[in-house]
C-alpha cells in the first residue's frame, strides 16, 4: 500500500522528467539510466549466482561497437541495431561464459577480466575494423533519437524492460535454482540441478542486457570507444551495484543514480571526482556493508 504509493510517485517523476529537468539534468538522467541498465545486468549474475564478473565491459562494448559498425559501415538506422547489439553481446557472453562459469570465485573473476581485456586489446589495436584507439565517431542516431527527450524515453523503456526481466527471473523457479546453486552447490546438485546450464544461461542473458546498455551509450555519446571495453568500465557497474546494494533488485539502479548524480555534482565543482568516489566507497565498505538499500532495511524484494 505504502510501497505502491511510492512506486507511483517515482513513476510519475520518471515519466515527466523531460518537462521539469533542465537540459543538462536530462543528459545526466540518460547517463544514469544507461548505467542502471548496465549495473542491473551485471547484478543479475552477481546477486543470483554469487559470481563476481570483472569482464562485463566486454558485453557493453560489444553492443556499442555492433551499433557503431552497423551504422557507420552498413548505414543501418539506429533503432534497428538494437536486436543486433543484444544478439552480439549475448553471443559473446555465451562464449566467454562457456569457459568461465565452470570456475569459481577468484578464478572466475580473473578469467572474466582476462577475456574482457583480450577483447579490448584486439579492438583497441584493430584500426582497420574498429578504428583502433580512435574509436568510431561522428555517429548520428537520426532526428528522433538524436533528441534528448526521445532518447530519455527509450533509455527508460529499455531499463524498465531489463529490470522487469531480472525481477521476473528472480521470482521464478529458475531464479530460485540459481540461488540454490549459489547457496549450496552440493545440495543443489543433490536435488537434481546441474549448475553449468543455469549459470551459463544467467551469464548469457546478463551479457545481452549489458549489450542493450551499450546500444544506448552510442546514441548518447554519438561514438564508440575502446574505453567501453576497458576493465574500469566493468568496475563502474560493480560499484554502482554494490553502492546501491546488490541484494536489492532496485539496488543497482539506485546506486547508478547516486553514482552519476554525485559524479555530475562533484565534477562541476572540482576535478577530483575519482578521489571523492574513492572516499565514498571506502566509507561505504567500512560502514554500510549493505549498500544504500540497506539503509532503508530493504532486503531482496520478494515482489
Amino acid at each position, binding site marked *: 500500500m505504502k510501497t505502491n504509493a511510492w512506486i507511483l510517485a517515482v513513476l510519475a517523476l520518471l515519466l515527466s522528467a523531460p518537462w521539469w529537468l533542465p537540459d543538462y539534468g536530462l543528459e545526466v538522467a540518460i547517463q544514469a539510466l544507461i548505467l542502471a541498465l548496465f549495473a542491473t545486468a551485471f547484478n543479475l549474475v552477481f546477486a543470483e549466482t554469487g559470481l563476481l564478473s570483472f569482464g562485463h565491459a566486454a558485453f557493453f562494448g560489444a553492443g556499442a561497437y555492433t551499433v557503431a559498425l552497423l551504422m557507420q559501415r552498413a548505414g543501418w538506422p539506429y533503432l534497428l541495431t538494437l536486436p543486433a547489439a543484444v544478439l552480439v553481446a549475448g553471443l559473446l557472453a555465451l562464449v566467454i561464459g562457456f569457459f568461465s562459469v565452470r570456475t569459481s570465485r577468484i578464478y572466475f573473476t580473473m578469467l572474466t577480466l582476462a577475456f574482457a581485456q583480450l577483447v579490448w586489446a584486439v579492438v583497441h589495436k584493430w584500426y582497420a575494423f574498429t578504428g583502433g584507439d580512435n574509436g568510431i565517431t561522428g555517429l548520428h542516431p537520426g532526428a528522433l533519437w538524436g533528441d534528448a527527450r526521445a532518447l530519455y524515453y527509450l533509455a527508460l523503456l529499455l531499463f524498465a524492460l531489463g529490470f522487469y526481466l531480472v525481477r521476473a527471473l528472480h521470482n521464478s523457479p*529458475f531464479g530460485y535454482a540459481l540461488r540454490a546453486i549459489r547457496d549450496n552447490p552440493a545440495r543443489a546438485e543433490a536435488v537434481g540441478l546441474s549448475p553449468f546450464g543455469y549459470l551459463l544461461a544467467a551469464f548469457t542473458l546478463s551479457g545481452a542486457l549489458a549489450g542493450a546498455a551499450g546500444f544506448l551509450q552510442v546514441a548518447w555519446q554519438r561514438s564508440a570507444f575502446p574505453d567501453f571495453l576497458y576493465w574500469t568500465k566493468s568496475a563502474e557497474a560493480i560499484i554502482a551495484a554494490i553502492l546501491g546494494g546488490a541484494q536489492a533488485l532496485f539496488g543497482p539502479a539506485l546506486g547508478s543514480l547516486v553514482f552519476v548524480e554525485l559524479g555530475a555534482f562533484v565534477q562541476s565543482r572540482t576535478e577530483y571526482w575519482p578521489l571523492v568516489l574513492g572516499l565514498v566507497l571506502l566509507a561505504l565498505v567500512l560502514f554500510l556493508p549493505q549498500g544504500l538499500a540497506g539503509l532503508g532495511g530493504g532486503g531482496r524484494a520478494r515482489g
Partner: protein
Amino acid sequence: MVDVLEVSRVRKSFYGFVALDDVSLRVEPGRFHALVGPNGAGKTTLFNVIVGRYRPDAGEVRLEGRRLTGLPTHRVVRGGLGISFQRAQAFLSMSVLENVTLAVLAQEGRTRAAWRPLRDEREARERARELLGWVGLAERAGEPAEALPLGDLKRVDIAMALAGRPRLLLLDEPLAGLSRSERREMVRFIEELLRGLGLTLLFTEHDTEAVLRLADRITVLHQGRVLAEGAPDEIKNDARVVEAFLGE
C-alpha cells in the same frame, strides 16, 4: 527380489592413494543398511562414488538393476535416489517452503521456467507442504531456513531428499552435530518416518549406539576394504571389527 542398491567391486584411488579397494555392497528392499568404519576407512568416498561425485576407477553401482556408475549427481538423484549430504543442508537464503518446493520442481525437471513466479507453482507447493508435514515441520514452512536450528534443518533436508519419491534414501552422517538428546530424537524420527513410508535406507554414521539401534544390516569398512558385513549382533561381537575400531 532385486536389490535396491548393488555396489560391485568398486575401486577408487586418488593420486596413488587407494581409498576404496574391491568394495561390494548390497542393500535389500526395505532394509536400513549402515556403512561404518573408522575415520579414513572410505565411508565418505564410497558415499560419493554412489551419488556420482566421484567416478570409480573400476566397479559398478546399480539401482534396482539400472546402472548409475559414472552418472553425475544431478542425474543420479533423478533416477530414484534421495540424498542428504553431511554438511550440505538447505538453501539458507530461502524459506523452508521454498526450499522444498524447489526440490520438488527440480525432480520434475521444471526449474527452467523463468517466466512465472515460484509462488504460482501450486502443485509443487502442495507437495512441498505434504513433505514438510511428513517431517513434522508444516508450521515452520514460512520461516527463513537460516532461522532454523540444526535438527530442524536436517529434517528439511530429508524432506528435500524425499521430493522425488526415491527408492533409496542415502544419508551421510545424519546425526553429525547434534547433541545426545537430539540424536535420540533424530533416530526415532528417521525410524518412524522411513518405516512408515516403506523406504530403504543406506546411511553412514559414527555414532555406534545409533547404528546398532537403527540398522538391520551393517557393512564395516576398514582401510578401503570391506572388513565385515552382517546383522548388528554379529558385527557387535566380531573381533576384527572391535579391533579395527579400537585401533583408531
